[in-house]
């Protein structure tokens, strides 16, 4: 069995190496920049449009905090230096699961704001919105899953109430709270394991559930710190949709476009990309086939076609290997190959 597996790996590596030499090669990083479409809407479009990756992002978690943060932000009418803020309008609604179920659109919406100070003291401001229009992967809206969790919660409460049977006679004692805490805590691990198991199973089953997201962002430049001479210099949008393809497949499409100012200070420089990717496999490992087209004003469109394999190495760490053909700047198709690692927030 091991021999067979080794043979498969060796064959794969040999095929990868052969493919890489069949066509003229290009730099994979260059390839990604020039021909790859955006398949996902960025978490914070305002940061994306400013091409900034802030180390600290303010995320106020209540309507009061939102008000205080915004008031401090523009204190004295000045635009702050290198600032990043992300808020959810849902926080302005009551913080309840019931309300979330009635208005998931508002809870999932994110507004992002960022500033960046350029070398010549010019302020660059970005404002973005990210909307989830449809999401069957949302575990808070999965009724079947919620019913199972309610049953687990009932088991937990029944176990904890058995502590009351033991301790009711000691209710007047000084150490009553500590004794009840100790008794309840002893039952927690059993329940925690049950929750982990069911959540993992639902995520595995729902890996290819439908989801549609979109994002908008605009950026503006200001010559001074008071933002009196703000001038919009770019607009960008993203649209991303994923649909199941049978039980083990998924189709993901990403559309991205934007317009920005050219050298003559006119909002006429446009660019756009469209990508379609098909997956087959499980949440752990998948084969993919993708086709991208990217176009921009004053340059010829580029095209790419790739086939690859994606593997979840560990929680939050993904590796993918791909082989492909690309055509850009009016040239002939050339081959490309890449090995990438992606890091996401561990679940």
């Amino acid at each position, binding site marked *: 069995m091991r021999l067979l597996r080794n043979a498969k790996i060796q064959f794969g590596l040999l095929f990868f190496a052969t493919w890489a030499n069949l066509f003229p090669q290009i730099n994979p990083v260059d390839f990604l920049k020039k021909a790859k479409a955006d398949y996902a809407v960025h978490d914070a479009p305002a940061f994306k449009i400013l091409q900034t990756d802030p180390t600290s992002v303010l995320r106020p978690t209540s309507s009061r905090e939102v008000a205080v943060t915004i008031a401090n932000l523009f204190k004295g009418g000045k635009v702050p230096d290198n600032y990043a803020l992300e808020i959810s309008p849902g926080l302005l609604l009551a913080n309840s699961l019931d309300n979330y179920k009635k208005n998931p659109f508002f809870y999932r919406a994110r507004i992002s704001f960022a500033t960046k100070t350029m070398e010549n003291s010019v302020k660059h401001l970005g404002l973005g919105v990210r909307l989830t229009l449809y999401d069957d992967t949302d575990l808070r809206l999965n009724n079947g899953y919620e019913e199972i969790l309610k049953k687990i919660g009932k088991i937990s409460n029944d176990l904890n109430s058995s502590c009351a049977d033991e301790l009711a006679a000691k209710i007047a004692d000084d150490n009553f709270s500590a004794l*009840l805490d100790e008794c*309840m805590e002893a039952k927690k691990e059993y329940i925690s394991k049950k929750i982990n198991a069911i959540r993992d199973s639902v995520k595995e089953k729902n890996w290819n559930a439908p989801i549609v997201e979109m994002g908008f962002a605009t950026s503006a430049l200001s010559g001074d710190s008071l933002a009196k001479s703000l001038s919009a210099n770019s607009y960008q949008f993203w649209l991303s949709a994923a649909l199941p393809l049978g039980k083990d497949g998924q189709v993901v499409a990403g559309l991205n476009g934007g317009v920005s100012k050219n050298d003559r200070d006119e909002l006429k420089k446009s660019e756009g990309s469209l990508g379609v990717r098909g997956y087959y496999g499980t949440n752990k490992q998948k084969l993919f086939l993708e086709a991208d087209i990217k176009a921009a004003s004053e340059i010829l469109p580029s095209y790419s076609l790739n086939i690859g394999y994606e593997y979840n190495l560990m929680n939050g760490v993904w590796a993918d290997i791909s082989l492909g053909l690309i055509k850009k700047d009016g040239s002939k198709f050339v081959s490309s190959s890449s090995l990438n690692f992606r890091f996401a927030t561990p679940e």
Partner: protein
Amino acid sequence: MAVVVKKHVKILPDDAVITVELEFDTLLLCTYKIQLREKNSNQVIISWFGDNSNDEEDKYVIGIANESDGKTVWIFFTVIDQTGEGGKYEVRALFKQNGKLIDDGILSSGSRIISPGDNLQSGALVAILQTN
């Protein structure tokens, strides 16, 4: 660590009805079990179960004030992190007599956080009903 809050809730000795209402500030799933127990005993008079998936279903009649002295109300809750991303929560129990909030009649877990990976937190709010 579980959340345990114990409090004496003072009620007026009259024929008014005592009720308890639960409020939840959270996007997490919270299930609960309420038990009314006899004075100086672990004998359960009545139990109710529920959760926070509907805001309008968490109100219960404990009984007549004159007959409630010394009885205990035990509210066991389990807050479950559905997504694995963690979150904040607060659970409050509001005791009312004849529809009016009783002085010192709010038992609160306080604002608490479940960290990603912790899956759940359990707690108990224990009220000892006491006539003035």
